[in-house]
């Protein structure tokens, strides 16, 4: 007992400590395992489709990449239009809540926008196809008649309103809450001194926002857009219910021949798929996973870089 004279007192390792810390490590590692399993199982199930011989794939596609390419295009295209709509609106809403609305109202208004996030996507789909598509169709006809010379609005206008533009509007509404929340947080973090300095120099409120808030919040806006893009890319049911799909690649916004998205294609085809068809759908899901992974990684990178320098303020 007295032989240890080094002076280092080592805490007795208790059984409870051992068990508890090990179980937390196991739980943490389980996440590693799950994610690895997601990747491995998807890859294993995809391989038959990727190496499939011509003539065996759906849509008479010569190989898997020819099958998936229109879907990739449709996915990115619909999400991109959704972003074009939702970025200015979400910045506006975030600014309204952070800098324009009366202090007492601001939090309540934030809750109202968060309510949109609580609506399940299938309900958005139902609303999109039964309410929005019907209501907006006359506007599409007008747009097509008056601005049909712009290639985007050209083509034969859809009679049902189930077009890629309607889908993009629904997607924009769905990604609005997350984008607004991120933008709002970043705008609220703007150093008070920057804002007051701008106002003291005689800037109007808009000039203060343009010179102090927006430059400070730019990384936040970028990461918010990327998070919104990630959501919009993976959105399934709203697209599956609203879009009238076709196997095409075109940039027309108002026609009934719309490129389908990967997620929506899986949801529509999976219940009836069999054999190599299932493998093809899983492989396209893998492609979607890779795309969203890249987009989310960019978003995280932007947020983390932002964190690094906000500590200096």
């Amino acid at each position: 007992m007295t032989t240890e004279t080094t002076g280092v007192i080592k805490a007795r390792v208790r059984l409870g400590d051992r068990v508890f810390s090990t179980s937390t490590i196991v739980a943490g590692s389980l996440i590693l395992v799950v994610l690895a399993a997601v990747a491995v199982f998807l890859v294993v199930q995809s391989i038959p489709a990727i190496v499939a011989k011509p003539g065996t794939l759906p849509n008479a596609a010569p190989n898997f990449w020819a099958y998936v390419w229109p879907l990739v295009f449709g996915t990115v295209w619909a999400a991109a239009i959704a972003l074009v709509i939702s970025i200015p609106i979400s910045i506006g809403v975030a600014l309204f809540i952070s800098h324009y609305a009366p202090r007492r109202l601001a939090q309540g208004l934030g809750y109202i926008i968060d309510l949109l996030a609580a609506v399940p996507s299938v309900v958005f789909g139902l609303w999109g196809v039964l309410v929005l598509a019907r209501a907006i169709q006359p506007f599409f006809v007008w747009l097509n008649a008056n601005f049909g010379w712009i290639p985007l609005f050209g083509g034969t206008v859809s009679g049902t309103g189930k077009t890629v533009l309607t889908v993009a509007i629904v997607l924009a509404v769905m990604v609005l809450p997350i984008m607004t929340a991120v933008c709002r947080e970043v705008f609220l973090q703007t150093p008070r001194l920057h804002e007051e300095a701008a106002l003291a120099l005689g800037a109007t409120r808009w000039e203060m926002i343009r010179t102090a808030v927006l430059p400070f919040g730019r990384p936040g806006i970028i990461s918010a857009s990327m998070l919104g893009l990630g959501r919009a890319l993976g959105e399934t049911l709203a697209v599956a219910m609203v879009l009238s799909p076709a196997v095409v690649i075109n940039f027309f916004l108002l026609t009934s021949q719309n490129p389908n998205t990967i997620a929506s294609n899986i949801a529509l085809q999976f219940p009836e798929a069999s054999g190599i068809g299932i493998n093809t759908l899983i492989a396209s899901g893998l492609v979607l996973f890779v795309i969203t992974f890249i987009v989310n990684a960019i978003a995280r990178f932007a947020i983390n870089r932002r964190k690094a320098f906000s500590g200096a303020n």
Partner: protein
Amino acid sequence: MAVSVARPMTNSLTTGRLPRGSVWMILVGSWILLGIVFLLVQMAGGTKQYNLVGALFLGTVLFDILVFTIAYLVEGGRQARDRLATSLIATAFIIALLPLISLIYTVLLNGFARMVQPSFFTESMRNVLDAGGGAVHAIVGTLEITGLATVFSVPIGLLTSIYLVEYGKGQLARTITFLVDVMTGIPSIVAGLFAYAFFVLLTGNVGYRSGLGGAVALSVLMIPVVVRSSEEMLKLVPNELREASYALGVPKWLTVLKIVLPTSAAGITTGIMLSIARVIGETAPLLIVSGLTASMNYNLFDGRIMTVPVFVYTQYANQGAHQSDFVNRAWAAALTLILIVMLLNLIARIIARIFSPKLGR
């Protein structure tokens, strides 16, 4: 004396400014103007019914232009731009509210009448081709699958967040944090495909469908949310509490169990409720791995099992001969789903409000 009488009364604080309240008058004025224009269009037979949204929208656009022009003439360019920005930002907020109002209004209008019919909560869709039937099989299925997903994800998520906050440092903790971020971004349909591929490899049955698979898919979506929110809550526990506990000779695991977790229990519960609210509306993974059925199947481990979101989807997508009956059921189920989600959110907020620890500040 005479000179000062001749000068008109001016107030240096208000010259060159628009009078107070004039902006609001311009807004109401332009709405009324466009309202009249659209009324004339309707009377001339241009539109079938009165286009209120169009009138409000174009009225707001007219207001933006008017405010900019008037302010430019009276107040100068910089003030005009400021007013334009203010009105555009307020417009953006109103545009964001429009779909929410429209959605809640239509779901209530179309769903309420069907939902309050007693059969909706007592009958399944077995052998129903017209107005009857209900969603009880879907509601029970949703509760079972979400419950099982919660049983899977809460222990894993909570222990992971404890690891990240209390134990984790170095490469493993950084990797886990990164992977949790990655998991947050997994599209829900990919989670469904994963669960399907997993069980197909496990059972060798290509047509595999079960509630268990749905619960696994939902867990993949739920775990990262639980980890994130619990982590935030554990970080809020003041270090003084932990140090006081260590100073009394309490081992680390008991400190975590008896001090840290009770202190953050309210916040963690809130986070779990919110994560349940998030996955309970998921449709795509359940459509793929749990399938759909018209009958009551409450066995999670065997066969297809119905859920409310999938019920909404199938009622819309596979309309029978009596279309309106199917659409009505879809709206009613949508309303049920929204009510469940709202209820969970409400409970979460109440828990957060009542039980959150009062940190002495």
